[in-house]
């Protein structure tokens, strides 16, 4: 009881930059896995769920011949660097860049989900997980941005 309360208190005390960095690592891991299977010509493991193969094999899984997941790797890597840099320096421009880039990713994710639902006809659970991580990153970045005076001394006072 005391232990879980302590964990909760520790979590509450976490700097949001760390929360963003953790979410960025989750997204990076998913995108890296999907990129590795796409670049080696194999298919993502979907378990009992259906749809990963169909989405991975569709023409929409690549842009200009490059797997979409590779772009996800670069986006997550950039967001991770921004999150850590903001955590260490509290420079608002870094948080702003994280907010803007994650929103850009969310917009593309909305388009890709539309393709999955209405064009390809299947939902890839890995892509959905990446999308959820992006929405979470955007949400946290927005939440922090609205309370940025608390984290950025430049704005305090």
């Amino acid at each position: 009881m005391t232990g879980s309360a302590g964990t909760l208190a520790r979590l509450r005390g976490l700097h949001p930059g760390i929360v963003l960095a953790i979410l960025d690592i989750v997204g990076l891991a998913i995108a890296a896995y999907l990129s590795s299977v796409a670049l080696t010509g194999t298919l993502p493991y979907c378990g009992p769920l259906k749809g990963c193969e169909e989405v991975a094999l569709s023409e929409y899984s690549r842009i200009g011949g490059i797997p979409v997941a590779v772009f996800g790797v670069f986006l997550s890597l950039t967001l991770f660097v921004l999150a850590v840099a903001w955590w260490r320096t509290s420079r608002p421009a870094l948080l702003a860049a994280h907010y803007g880039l994650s929103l850009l990713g969310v917009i593309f994710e909305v388009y890709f989900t539309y393709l999955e639902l209405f064009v390809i006809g299947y939902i890839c659970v890995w892509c959905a997980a990446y999308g959820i991580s992006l929405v979470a990153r955007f949400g946290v970045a927005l939440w922090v941005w609205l309370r940025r005076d608390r984290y950025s001394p430049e704005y305090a006072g």
Partner: protein
Amino acid sequence: MTTPNAAKTRRERRLEERLARREAPHPRRTETKGRISLGWLTLVAVVGGLVLIAAAVVLNGDRNPPTAPLTVAVATVPADLESDGYALGRADAPVTIDLYEDFQCPACRTWGEGVFPRLAANELANGTARLVFHPMAFLGPESTTAANAAWAAGQQGRFWDMWATIYANQGRENSGALGNERLVAMAERLGLDLVKFGADMDSAAADADLSAGIGEASAAGVSSTPTLVIAGQAYVGVQPYPDIAAAIAAAGAAR
């Protein structure tokens, strides 16, 4: 009672106050100076996202719009390879590979261009395996017309050439790339008897054959394309040729 000295002082004080106000930064300007506006940032991100989507649409453009000139392809198989309708390879080959495809499936085209030529040149040519095609049509009306056209070409002994030609002309799903007129034009370019081709393509037998193919896929538990079934084991998607060759070798050894 005010003295000139006191009035001057007041004037001086007002002047000082005015100067001080002029020099002091504007409160609203102080508030926004150096700040990044959430609204502008959101707008820039939204525009960036839309540009990215537009770029994706342009870069993934239709490689075969319905107006594109037709490409005629001949299946890349050794000249003396036995062919019987949907079957390719020796009838007494120890291993049968069941191939389930939808003509509008881009991955099927990839399989046909990448894996099929090596399979035909090796396992099918040396008599180790026989390939049997099973039509599926779950991507829309042009999947059905293409399957019927391929079956009709098979009635003139040219199924595999039509199979290769259809994939060479595959475009976006149900865009007209595999519409009736273009399929007839493909048959013409392949030198088929067009009267017979047209009659076969529109026949009840063509529909019955497609229904049978879909039924076979369902019975085999196949739900996506391309799927290869070798000795009861399904290989879904574009599996690398060495994996397929190893599966054929294992199935042959197990006999």
